[in-house]
């Protein structure tokens, strides 16, 4: 009861003290506002990057295992991978047979070529030779038209499904379906346009600048039947996503068998997953975030010093009041709490204003199209907690000074 009353009284004093010094409060708060905006925006931007990356990378497929010559993220000794043999179409076919009925196995090959439609040209489009199964592996659906069919692959049809950026670039608003485009020297018929995938940030692949052709047509038109590099995607059947781990070992085993590797030999291929990509992304961007937070927290620290300064003023101004309160029975902790609350509330107000401004900044980032930044409830809660902690830290020394005042000296203070 007594503690509660103490708290209530402290809160009441703190609020009236802030209300009595509005201009001073606003100026003091400014430092905290700037600090919180900086910290919050940093976190929001990190979230945005992560979201952008995840959205983009979802085309990779969360439960899909990729067998490739090289790991996606090469750490260190690149030359160790350089001499690995390419994965051939025959190896892909052997793997498909091994997993027949147990998992979907889909090979892809890719080349970059210019694409033309009448006078419109797009340079350096990623041409991917694949099968109809790609749609299942990556969950990418055509917005208009259709995806590749088994028939297209079997009969080496010169048809192409194009990404949204390519569609915009070559056809603008007009329909692309059944138009003939030139990929390098070869003519292909557009049969589908894919949904926009988005999120091509940080030098990652631009999924909307890809086009898909039957792998059979790909090897015929662009060569590579014997020297092209194949990536194999292995996807566990739907509903058995938890089996990915086991599947990974099986895939490694099968590939080693296909390549006739002896037990002592190291695998001369790599297994890639979305997880490893996310992990690499997080470790890189995590460092950036850490540095960002470190720098922005300096702003918050400076703001905190400002609050501490003003709290010293506030304690000195109210020395006599402290004396009165002590004379009529206030204990040290009552005085301590009174000033701690005052500085915590000043910082909290700063924090709330900061969150408001950070929300505006976030909208601005969103509107600018840099990244899908989003301010989350978690970030807001963190900002509130951080600002209050800054307030309590900044207020502690002044409040302690006030709480320790001798009542006689304090009463005598003019």
């Amino acid at each position, binding site marked *: *009861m*007594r503690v509660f*009353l*103490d708290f*209530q*009284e402290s809160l009441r*004093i703190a609020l*009236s*003290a802030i209300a*009595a010094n509005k201009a001073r409060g606003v100026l003091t708060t400014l430092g905290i506002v700037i600090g919180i905006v900086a910290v919050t925006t940093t976190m929001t931007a990190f979230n945005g990057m992560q979201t952008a990356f995840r959205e983009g990378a979802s085309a990779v497929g969360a439960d899909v295992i990729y067998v490739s010559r090289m790991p996606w993220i090469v750490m260190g000794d690149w030359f160790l991978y350089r001499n690995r043999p390419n994965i051939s179409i025959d190896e892909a076919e052997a793997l498909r047979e091994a997993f027949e009925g147990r998992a979907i196995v889909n090979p892809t090959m890719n080349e970059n070529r210019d694409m033309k439609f009448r006078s419109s040209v797009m340079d350096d489009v990623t041409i991917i030779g694949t099968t109809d199964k790609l749609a299942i592996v990556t969950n990418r659906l055509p917005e208009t038209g259709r995806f590749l069919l088994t028939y297209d692959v079997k009969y080496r049809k010169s048809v192409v499904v194009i990404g949204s950026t390519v569609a915009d670039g070559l056809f603008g608003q007009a329909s692309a379906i059944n138009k003939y485009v030139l990929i390098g020297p070869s003519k292909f018929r557009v049969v589908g346009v894919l949904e926009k995938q988005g999120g091509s940030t940080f030098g990652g692949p631009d999924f909307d600048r890809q086009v898909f052709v039957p792998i059979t047509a790909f090897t015929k038109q662009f060569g590579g039947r014997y020297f092209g590099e194949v990536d194999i995607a292995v996807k566990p059947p739907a509903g058995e996503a938890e089996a990915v781990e086991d599947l990974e070992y099986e895939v490694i085993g099968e590939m080693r068998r296909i390549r006739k590797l002896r037990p002592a030999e190291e695998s001369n291929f790599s297994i890639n997953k979305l997880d490893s990509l996310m992990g690499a992304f997080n470790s890189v961007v995590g460092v950036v975030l850490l540095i960002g937070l470190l720098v922005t927290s300096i702003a918050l620290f400076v703001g905190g010093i400002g609050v501490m300064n003003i709290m010293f003023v506030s304690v000195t101004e109210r020395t*006599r*009041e402290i*004396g*009165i*309160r*002590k*004379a*009529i*029975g*206030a*204990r*040290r902790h*009552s005085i301590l709490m009174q000033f701690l609350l005052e500085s915590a509330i000043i910082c909290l107000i700063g924090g709330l204003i900061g969150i408001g401004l950070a929300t505006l900044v976030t909208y601005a980032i969103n509107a600018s199209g840099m990244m899908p930044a989003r301010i989350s409830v978690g970030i807001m809660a963190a900002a509130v907690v951080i600002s209050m902690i800054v307030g309590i830290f900044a207020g502690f020394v002044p409040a302690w000074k006030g709480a320790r005042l001798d*009542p*006689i000296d304090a*009463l005598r203070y003019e």
Partner: protein
Amino acid sequence: MAMAAPQDADLDNGILFLRDVVKTYLMGSEEVHALCGVSLTIADNEYVAIMGPSGSGKSTLMNIIGCLDVPTSGFYSLGGESVANKSEAELADIRNRLIGFIFQTFNLIPRADVLHNVELPLIYGGIGKAERRQRAMEVLERVGLANRVTHRPNELSGGQRQRVAIARALVFNPSIILADEPTGNLDSRTGDEIMQMLDELHASGQTIIVVTHEDGIAAHASRTILLRDGGIESDLRRDNPARSMAKTSR
């Protein structure tokens, strides 16, 4: 010097009991003896004036009686309880419950209204809202300010402010009222009103200690203690104190 153990009889008699109280301050490297061995017993419902020129130890004695300060040596008990070896928090509680302060400069909290100022000791004493309000209103009625509860101190006259301070001093029903020059900042007519109020409080059974340098104020008390150079020079009882006979408005 061996400290004289207080006699039980003395403790029974006195609501306030000092024996050989010494207070020494360190001013730079020099020791200043503000009080050098003051012994004093004040009984329940006494009306005592403490007088003395500046530097006589008057303020120091008041601070010690008010538990704002502790003696360097000697014995002090209030309401039958020794004040020695009390922690800061315990001293705060004694000030809160046993002592009602009235200051020359009123010492109200400027941003709080009258009611809140009077409730303050009860808040620090942990009294719940309903009881607090009731007790505060009772004492405010007693000092005739029940119709001013929402005013801020700066909206009141000096006399009214001092009456708020009296209400605040009374609200916890203290053992003693300790008034330090209670009329020092008031004109003589208002001062008379305040003294009249103290007289009434005394008449209703309250123990009152007034620290003053004015003979006219001291004349209200039934006992005058004169301090000089940190010791008691005289301790006189008066049979016919100059009480104001006019009734204060209620």
